[in-house]
């Protein structure tokens, strides 16, 4: 027992008091997940999704989002409500071109040094300078260059905008807008590496509610509560251990034996089985602003004809996909009867399976005998994209469209998307910021970003999306949003299938799970009595 207590002391950096292994286990939340972080620095090259989660817990941001209870009783963050984190308060200038943040005076980094406006200046300069994902994300809120950030005094920080942008404040609440301990990071920077990318990859320089205790890439990450954290209510969990268990079968065995407290993100089939079992809490949240879809390359024959795309939308076996691929978990994005609105986004399309109409449209478009095409999928997301592709292939054969399925390895998928030469593909897309115009700007707009996998272009839609981004009048905004969704659904360059679910299984005593738009686990709300 003594030896075990030394283990827990080393692992968790505790004072060397004699605690038994059982005590340590009892106050540690053990989370199992398929893959772990590859970096502790969300600004780093190639930082993966679990790295966003680690960074979210280790670092604070100026502002965050509030929380709400959904109609089904589960908890979610609330994107309509921006709440203080490092900033106690903030003002937005009347011309909406400057945001001034007043920092809380008692916030400290994990090494005990105070959080100042200088740290935010350095961190934001870094985000817009290092390129890649953080720079892209900042740009989504019109935050583009270091000149836009100024430390007015020790506790006042100002952001100026080149144009009003309703997404600027939400971007500052997103995982990339972290406050880094600039003095510590700069002491580790070198001439070749002025932003300390190398050091921050494996080290914690945050002021977040949890600090990093141990990280063994590919195996586990251990976190401990930061006792001096003041930027929110004190978290209940003292320690969190995130273990990487690639096999879903082994994950389930661990949960059922009580060796794991939480399985984060489990496959739809396992979630259905666990729900039926009733022994565990299953938190299932629709992933906001996300959809599985079939994309059709709209700038080349045969899918450049609206009628051909509509024929595909009429041929897809929606019900079969819902029941045998999604296992009924998820929200159908087809067969809608109401006109689309911003509030119901992602809204269901009006399309339903109707092979007779599909054949007619195909004949009208000049393909009475059909044609041959390729349907690509991302092999690293074979569940569910492969069964979807098989069902689509079978259904399209009935209207004469002969499809060959092309499985592209995960390593090559992004490159394939960037080349924009896939005639048909199965893909999913989700936006962090829950605004339809944000989704459409990346996924449908004629700027032809990588997410516009269909190379779709419609000047009328582009104008509506741009207007909605700048809109100040709510009624006009609603009209614009309904307008661009209607165009997109009428011309169907992408055929929406369903909105997926993020499933998290928790042992019964664990409470407080809250869904976040970044789809990672926030330890702060969780409790284990």
């Amino acid at each position: 027992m003594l030896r075990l207590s030394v283990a827990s002391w080393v692992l968790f950096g505790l004072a060397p008091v004699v605690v038994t292994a059982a005590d340590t286990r009892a106050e540690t939340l053990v989370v199992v997940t398929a893959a772990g972080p590859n970096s502790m620095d969300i600004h780093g090259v190639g930082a993966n999704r679990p790295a966003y989660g680690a960074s979210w817990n280790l670092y604070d941001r100026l502002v965050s989002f509030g929380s709400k209870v959904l109609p089904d009783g589960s908890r979610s963050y609330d994107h309509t409500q921006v709440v203080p984190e490092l900033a106690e308060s903030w003002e937005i200038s009347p011309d909406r071109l400057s945001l001034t943040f007043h920092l809380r005076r008692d916030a400290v980094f994990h090494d005990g040094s105070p959080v100042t406006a200088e740290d935010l200046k350095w961190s934001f300069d870094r985000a817009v300078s290092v390129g890649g994902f953080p720079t892209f994300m900042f740009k989504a809120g019109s935050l583009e260059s270091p000149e836009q950030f100024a430390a007015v005094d020790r506790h006042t920080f100002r952001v100026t905008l080149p144009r009003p942008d309703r997404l600027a404040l939400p971007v500052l609440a997103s995982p990339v807008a972290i406050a880094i301990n600039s003095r510590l990071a700069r002491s580790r920077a070198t001439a070749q590496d002025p932003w300390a990318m190398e050091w921050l990859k494996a080290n914690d320089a945050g002021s977040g509610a949890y600090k990093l205790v141990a990280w063994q890439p590919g195996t586990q990450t251990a976190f401990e509560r930061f006792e001096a954290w003041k930027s929110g209510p004190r978290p209940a969990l003292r320690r969190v251990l995130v273990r990487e268990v690639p096999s879903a079968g082994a994950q389930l065995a661990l949960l059922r034996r009580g060796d794991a407290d939480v399985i984060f993100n489990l496959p739809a089939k396992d979630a259905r089985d666990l729900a039926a079992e009733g022994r565990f809490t299953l938190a299932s949240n629709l992933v906001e602003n996300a959809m599985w879809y079939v994309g059709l390359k709209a700038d080349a024959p045969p899918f450049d004809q609206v009628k051909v795309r509509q024929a595909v939308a009429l041929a897809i076996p929606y019900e079969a996909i819902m029941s045998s691929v999604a296992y009924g978990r998820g929200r159908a994005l087809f067969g809608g009867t109401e006109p689309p609105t911003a509030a119901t986004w992602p809204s269901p399309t009006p399309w339903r399976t109707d092979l007779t109409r599909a054949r007619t449209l195909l004949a009208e478009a000049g393909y009475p005998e059909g044609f041959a095409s390729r349907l690509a999928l991302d092999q690293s997301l074979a569940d569910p994209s492969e069964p979807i592709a098989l069902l689509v292939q079978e259904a399209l054969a009935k209207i004469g469209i002969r499809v060959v399925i092309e499985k592209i390895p995960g390593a090559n998928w992004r490159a394939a998307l960037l080349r924009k030469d896939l005639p048909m593909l199965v893909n999913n897309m989700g936006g962090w910021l829950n605004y339809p115009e944000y989704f459409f700007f990346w996924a449908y707009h004629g700027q032809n970003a990588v997410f516009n996998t269909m190379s779709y272009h419609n000047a009328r839609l582009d104008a509506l999306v741009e207007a909605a981004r700048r809109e100040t009048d709510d009624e006009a905004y609603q009209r614009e949003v309904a307008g661009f969704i209607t165009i997109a659904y009428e011309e169907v360059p992408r055929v929406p299938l369903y909105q997926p679910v993020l499933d998290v299984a928790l042992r019964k005593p664990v409470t407080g799970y809250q869904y976040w738009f970044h789809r990672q686990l926030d330890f702060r709300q969780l409790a284990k009595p």
Partner: protein
Amino acid sequence: MTVLTLISRRLLAALPTLAGVLVITFVITRTLPGDPAAFFAGPAASQEAVGQIREKLGLNRSLPVQFGVYLRDLARGDLGPALTTGQPVRVELAQRLPASLELTACGLGFALLVGVPLGIAAATRPGSWLDHGGRLVSTLGVSLPSFFLGLLLIYVFYYRLGWAPAPLGRLDAFVLPPEPVTHFLLVDALLRGEFATFRAAAAQLALPALTVGLFALAPLTRMTRAAMIEALASDYVRAARAAGLSRARILLVYALHNALLPVVTTLGMVFSYLLGINVLVEKVFAWPGLGSFSFEALLAGDYHSVQGFILTMGGLFVLLNLAVDLLYGLIDPRVARSPG
């Protein structure tokens, strides 16, 4: 020729092989379809963002220049960064190779301890229930997919019976690992005299090693059986029997000794094969080994990791072949005396 000169000559002869491995892996990783820059640029990358990443990773330079840089770094012992895990490749390999080797060696040890006696027993009583039983076990071991076998063992021994610890890698998170000497947990724990740690590590190892071992059982049993049957039918065994030697002496000294050569050959082959099988076993048991690492790296097009992995494997195979050849010499002195 002494053993030392044999070893040094063989190691020298392996250098061109390793150089070939170096060049071929470099060329293969570069010519595979896929673009690591696009992968690591993240979900939201534009063409420019991918270009920035490509420049950062040095992928925009010509292949000969990249190869030169790679050789220069290699000479300094730098295998480059592993983008999938964020660690230097050298560190990853140093931590993961012992984990994989320990697992494979224990699995193979189990297969040897069970397979060779089983093969001998089957050869001396062909057609008996022992022979059929051995055939059944080894056929099951080789025909059940190893991940399925692993899950089955977890289900029975961990979930149902509760005899095995949680399938969570090499050591329970709440047990302190021994001070590393060899990085083989079992060996290190014994060297430090930490018997509780040894037991904890052995318990973690039991199920994955059994999964690996059951897979290796079939070829070893079959090969031992076949070689023993041949040896038992040979003239020298008949002569030994005629001379009235004891049954045990005939079996173990005359027959087994001569049957060992093909068994050792099989052992070498099975060992290298097991390192491949490990990918799935490591996934099921969350084992932090080379297999799962190289698999993820390959999926991500992570050049440095794949190159480092193949180079390590190349070196390992050279050593393995050398060990097998030395064993030949021990078993059959004629092999050691023949030139080359």
